[in-house]
Each structure stands twice: as structure tokens, then as C-alpha cells.
């Protein structure tokens, strides 16, 4: 716990894995906040009652909610007489807001006077809104970098029979993750591969497509953090050719392990990468499965290139992350003043 010691407490409903990851990382990288995951959506349930009592005891200066969920309204109502300020941390980009049909929530939140601080993970959205609405700030995503050495890691192991490609996303995000183009691209590969999934095949329609396209896949379903970290180590190449994104922790978690990821231009974590990385890994037209397939083939045929790009990306994201952490600390210091 940092110098604020429970002065900034964040909450996020379990249904938002990316936002929870952002807020857990914020706690660890800045040491200025404490994050809790709300596992129950029951507004009258014991979990909410516990945390309301906890907040009344701890008396934090600011409570920030990740995204929006109906259970947060109970906090606002029950704690309205306490000297606690409230804020939201909105992680969706403008494109994501439209695609995921979140505009109704965002429009209400920015007008809600009980929520004094509006924090956005998308810089553009924060900058635009700050010209019209008070107390809007850009709070960047930060990363916890594992103590790994990609040189000694996966590439040092015995050569595998199959290239492992990941296509990870939450079931709530299928609309913007460009799944069909990625599946079409993978289905055209002549090489031995296994596509790693984290629940896509639980969806009947995508399961039909996976089977119709004869895609060899392994679906791990929802994974604990420990299992996810173990599985991600096995991956050779990630696929995240999204139509809209805010940060994309999946991409970041591949990169920090030296694993290259093919993405669209919409993935912000890739935006400050070098030209070489962008040329090799960013797809110009995400709606072209042929282009995605070409990029995959280039990488699966060249282990040296994968290793080189993975290492370069890791070094670049480390520098970028330092800036993000400094910026996040500045913003928290400002709003906690």
C-alpha cells in the first residue's frame, strides 16, 4: 500500500476483465490505490453490504468505479452522507462505446453530479471531453512486467510440432474483435497449428464455424490468473485484429513475454511501436482475412523473426510503460490533492 493508504479505493464488477486488470495493475504500479473486484451482482447481497461498511470504516477520500454496473448505484446511495468523493474509470474508446452499445451509460455518467471525477483510459476521449466537462482526466493503463527473459524462455525449448496461435477475448467483446476474419485466416494455413481460445467455442455459432472450417483448436474456457499466465507462455503468436480497442491487455500480456501479436491499427498498445514492428505486425485492412493470413504465415515460417520482433516489442513496451506509470501517478496526485 502506498502513501495514500486506502485514500483511493477502486471497485470493478467481475464482468469487466480488462478494467479489473487495469485497476489491479494501477494498484501495483503506482502504490497509490487499492482495488477490489465485485463478484456478485446482487444489489442487496452481503458482498455489497460488507464493502459499504468497509468504506464507512476506512473513510477513503475517493472511490472510483471501473466501467459501470447497477451495483455501484447502491454505493452512491448508501454513502451519500459520507465525506467520500466518487469517480468512474471508463476504459472504452469512442469506437468501442458505439460498437458495444455503451453510449446510454456514458451519456448518463458524464452528467451525474454525484460522480465528481471522470477518468478515461482513452486519451482522445479524455482530451475531447475535458474541453466541455470539468474533472475529466486521462488515466493511462499501466503494466506489471514479469521477470522473464524471452531469450531464455520459449525459444530455448525443444521445437514443437505445432505453432500455437492465440485468439483470446471476453464473450462480451466478440462484436469488436473481428473473430470471423481471424478464423478464416487461420483456416487457410497449410502449416501445423493449434488455435488457443478462452471460451469462443462455447458460443454455438462460432463453434459451428470452427468445425466447418476444420480449425484445430483448444478451448481453455475461462482461466484463473495463474492458469492464464501458464497458458500464455506456450503461445508462439497472438491474434488481436480488433475493430475498436482501448488498450488491449491481451496484446500487452503477450508482448511482455516476448510473444509477437498481429493486430489492427486500432490497438493503442501498438501505436508507439517502431516502424518495423508496425510493418510486420499491424494489418492495414482488418476486414481482409487474406492480409491477416499473410502476416501469420510470415511469422510462423520464421522463428528468428518472431523472436526478434518479440524482443524488440518487449523493450519498447518497457519504455512506454515507464511513461504511463509516471503519468498515472501525476493524475492520481492531482485528483487526490
Amino acid at each position, binding site marked *: *500500500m502506498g502513501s495514500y493508504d486506502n485514500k483511493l479505493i477502486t471497485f470493478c464488477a467481475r464482468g469487466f476483465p480488462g478494467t479489473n486488470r487495469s485497476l489491479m495493475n494501477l494498484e501495483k504500479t503506482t502504490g497509490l490505490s487499492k482495488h*477490489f*473486484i465485485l*463478484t456478485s451482482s446482487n444489489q442487496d*447481497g*452481503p458482498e455489497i*453490504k460488507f464493502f459499504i461498511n*468497509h468504506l464507512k*470504516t476506512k473513510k477513503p477520500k475517493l472511490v472510483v468505479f471501473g466501467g459501470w454496473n447497477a451495483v455501484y448505484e447502491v454505493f452512491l446511495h448508501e454513502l451519500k452522507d459520507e465525506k467520500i468523493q466518487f469517480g468512474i474509470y471508463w476504459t472504452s474508446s469512442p469506437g468501442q462505446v458505439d460498437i458495444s452499445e455503451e453510449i446510454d451509460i456514458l451519456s448518463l455518467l458524464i452528467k451525474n453530479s454525484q460522480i465528481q471525477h471522470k477518468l478515461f483510459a482513452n486519451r482522445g476521449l479524455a482530451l475531447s471531453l475535458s474541453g466541455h466537462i470539468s474533472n475529466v482526466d486521462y488515466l493511462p493503463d499501466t503494466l506489471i512486467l514479469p521477470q522473464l527473459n524471452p531469450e531464455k524462455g520459449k525459444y530455448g525449448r525443444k521445437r514443437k510440432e505445432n505453432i500455437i496461435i492465440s485468439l483470446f477475448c471476453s464473450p462480451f467483446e466478440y462484436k469488436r474483435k473481428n473473430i470471423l476474419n481471424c478464423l478464416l485466416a487461420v483456416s487457410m494455413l497449410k502449416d501445423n497449428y493449434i488455435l488457443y481460445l478462452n471460451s469462443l467455442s462455447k458460443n454455438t455459432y462460432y463453434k459451428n464455424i470452427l468445425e466447418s472450417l476444420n480449425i484445430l483448436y483448444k478451448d481453455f474456457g475461462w482461466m484463473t490468473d495463474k492458469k492464464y499466465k501458464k497458458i500464455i507462455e506456450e503461445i508462439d503468436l497472438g491474434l488481436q485484429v480488433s475493430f475498436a480497442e482501448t488498450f488491449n491487455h491481451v496484446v500487452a500480456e503477450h508482448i511482455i513475454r516476448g510473444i509477437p501479436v498481429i493486430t489492427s491499427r486500432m490497438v493503442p498498445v501498438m501505436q508507439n511501436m517502431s516502424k518495423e514492428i508496425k510493418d510486420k505486425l499491424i494489418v492495414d485492412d482488418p476486414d481482409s482475412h487474406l492480409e491477416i493470413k499473410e502476416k501469420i504465415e510470415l511469422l510462423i515460417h520464421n522463428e528468428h523473426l518472431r523472436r526478434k520482433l518479440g524482443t524488440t516489442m518487449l523493450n519498447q513496451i518497457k519504455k512506454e510503460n515507464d511513461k504511463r506509470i509516471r503519468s498515472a501517478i501525476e493524475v492520481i496526485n492531482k485528483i487526490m490533492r
Partner: protein
Amino acid sequence: MNQERCTMQKIDFDQTYVVSGEISHREIEGQILLLRPDDHCLYTVNGTGKFIWIEILKRKPVSMIAKNLAKSFNISEEKACKDVLKFVRDLEKKKIIVKERKK
């Protein structure tokens, strides 16, 4: 309680425990909810765990907790002993409870 029947070793059956100072805990709607400072989620304790927890709060020694558990849940003392030891060890490992110093 026949201590020799318990298969788990290295435990003082007269030992009492106290809740670590950093732990927030409350009973709400019949459930015991625990929050560790380093965790992001609450622990929920129900059933026999709740019974043992309340006994720990009453500062009863492990042997007494096992005896009371066996009586209340109509199970053998051996099974009760194992359950209590497992629960206590788990809470101790997670630093939720600590051994009370003997005066």
C-alpha cells in the same frame, strides 16, 4: 478427543488463535465475509467453516473446537479434528489468523 487418532502432525491442540489485525471481517446474512489487505476479492465462509471461525473468535483451543464441531454436526471426532486442522492451517497460511501468544 484422542489426539493420537488425528493423522495431521505438528499442531498444539491447546493452541488458540486470533484474527490478524489487518483482516476486516463481518457476519452478514449468516455468512462470514473476510477481506485480506493484499486480496482483490472477499472470502466467504459458510457451514462448518463458519462454526470453526466463530469458535476461533471465542478463543477456544483447537481441541475444544473439534470436540464442539463433532457434537454440533454429529460427525466423528476424528473427522472433526481433521476438518478443524485443515481450516485452521489454511487460515494461518493465508495470514488470516495467527497463534495467540500463551501468557
